């Protein structure tokens, strides 16, 4: 039987608790938004019976096609521009994906003050830098090549 020596540290349990809540929230929302999408309660911008003609295209061709046929913007729907399309069933599903991708940032932000308070400066600074790196990646500011 495990004793107290085998127990996780305070910040580890705190991190796990937030990660768990974020994960469950993201998963629950994903089920809801996907149901709204698939059941046609919130109509998608790309009709369900046409999606199979797009998922075999390279991403650039796909973006051009859905922009030309459905979105009609001057620029392709990349980065955070999906937020403008959140009223459509398919793009509504980006919301739980974003939560699941972003919960780690929140976990780090929450444990950082506790690490400083316990004098664990090295780990606290690492947590702050990690928040910066992940936020930078999420921002869409970084240019991406290819395709």
């Amino acid at each position: 039987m495990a004793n107290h020596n085998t127990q996780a540290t305070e910040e580890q349990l705190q991190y796990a608790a937030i990660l768990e809540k974020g994960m469950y929230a993201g998963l629950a929302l994903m089920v809801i938004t996907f149901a709204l999408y698939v059941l046609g309660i919130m109509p998608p911008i790309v009709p369900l019976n046409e999606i199979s003609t797009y998922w075999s295209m390279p991403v650039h061709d796909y973006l051009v096609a859905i922009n030309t046929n459905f979105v009609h913007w001057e620029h392709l729907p990349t980065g955070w521009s999906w937020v403008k399309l959140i009223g459509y069933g398919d793009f509504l599903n980006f919301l739980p994906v974003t939560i699941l991708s972003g919960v780690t940032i929140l976990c780090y932000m929450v444990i950082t003050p506790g690490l400083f308070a316990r004098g664990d400066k090295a780990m606290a600074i690492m947590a702050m830098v990690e928040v910066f790196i992940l936020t930078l990646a999420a921002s869409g500011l970084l240019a991406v090549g290819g395709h």
Partner: protein
Amino acid sequence: MQGNIKEKAGMLFVSCMCAIMLSPAWALATEATAMNPVPVVGEADWWKWPVILLFVTFVMGIIAVLGGVGGGVLFVPIISGFFPFHLDFVRGAGLLVALCGALAAGPGLLKANLASLRLAMPVALIASAMAIVGAMVGLALPTHIVQLSLGGAILGIVAIMLTAKKSVVPDVPHADALSSALRITGIYYEPTSKEEINWKIHRTIPGLLTFILIGFMAGMFGLGAGWANVPVLNLMMGAPLKISVATSKFLLSITDTSAAWIYLNKGCVIPMMVVPSLIGIMLGSFVGVRLLKVAKPTFIRWMVIAILLFSGLKAVQKGLSTMGINLSNLF
């Protein structure tokens, strides 16, 4: 008694799933569809592929947790060969699959103190930063070059794991200065041997430097990084295999987040293929993390090797076939 029966039933189920996933029939079926891509389904049948995707990723979720690999390593070669989705979306979904599999397993592993946050934090810092760079480079490179490089890397790691003498509980005579300063150590209860394992790590600086390469490769390939995390944490840095597997799984939730954001912002996400994949992998991970608590380290090690070998050969074959070299008859 009842727990023992459940344990055996669970391991039998996982073994069967592994056998199916790794069987020559599955490989040949995958090859056949890779050579003759599945035609786009009729508009009335669009729902069939997402349903199949849900089942396949559920099985992948179980195997990924027990193997300490990101689901993406299994997801990308199998889904890109067996399903009609373009590789761009498969890579994007693969990273999200690996990420969410890790999210589903992470809280349980952290609470059970099998995954170590203190071990993961310095590693994740380096790996996640380099994953961003890797994602940017990987999206600029020809796909067959990426696949071929990945196959070579995985097969190299398989060779290292096969020739390693110790790994379940590596011999670490003394913790090095950096790991001591960062207090990277811990104790966990090993139910199979009924012992408390007091672990520490060494070679911290070389290990961290290795994660520069691992992070870069994870982002470049879009396949997660569990395939490399476990050997480095276990064989190089000296963490026990169970701690390495669990910390690797948790680590993916951080490393893959940075790379996933790059793919997400690039538009490589189609909800109709991503959501069934994520739900399947997360449900599978819930089952897998419960089996991990009672699984034997040696069993996990051999399963990791089998999964990595299959994934490596698959990646090499696909890379070469794009270059006109057909190896489909070899496996």
